[in-house]
């Protein structure tokens, strides 16, 4: 039974990974692409790893999959934030249709 539930989790994760990569190709801007990409990390790969844990059971490799989920949840938001901040400071433009840019308003207020 846990086998079937694990396979369902792996299928959901595959769908999220594929659509995240498609968003990485199709969206117009660095920040939009980052938005799609972080979704595909958190929901896609974590769901695949949790499905792996459910399929192989609580043996060594399943516990390592849980450890891998913990590392991903700790590290991926930090790296996404660092890339977004670095891109904005390096002067990468937003796309033309974007409505608001609070970070540059903040920087103008400071200066």
């Amino acid at each position: 039974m846990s086998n079937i539930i694990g396979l369902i989790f792996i299928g959901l994760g595959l769908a999220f990974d594929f659509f995240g990569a498609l968003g990485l190709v199709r969206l117009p801007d660095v920040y939009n692409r980052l938005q799609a990409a972080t979704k595909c990390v958190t929901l896609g790969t974590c769901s695949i790893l949790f499905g792996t844990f459910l399929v192989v059971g609580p043996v060594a490799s399943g516990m390592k999959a849980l450890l891998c989920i913990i590392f991903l949840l700790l590290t991926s938001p930090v790296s996404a934030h660092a890339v977004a901040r670095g891109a904005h400071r390096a002067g990468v433009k937003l796309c033309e249709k974007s409505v608001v840019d609070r970070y540059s308003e903040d920087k103008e207020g400071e200066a």
Partner: protein
Amino acid sequence: MKRIRWFIGTVVLAGVVGLIIIRPLPFLSYPGLPYLSFFGRALYILILACLLCLYRICRGPTGADRIVAIDILGIMIVGLCAVLTISTGRSWYIDIGIAWVLQSFISTLALSKYLEGKGFDE
């Protein structure tokens, strides 16, 4: 020109998706594996996602695009390692996944620091 590119992209994507539905990857799995066709299709889909990331690495207009795509490529390879752990029955693939997560985190931080244009010793 744009319409031709749309057409080529649609044909390639539809062809690969049809290939995924018709023929799963037969190799890379131990003989008595249950749900073999599911895991073959899973490997196909992850490899396709990695190829989309490679397209963005090649074509990205700025450096930040490339850094995002490299990060996501690493994460997809972690998922590929998790699927290979089940389908080949060898438990050391997940060790590669753990090492890849930590190394990818450090390399992404270093690359974004480089993008920001400061020195590394802040």
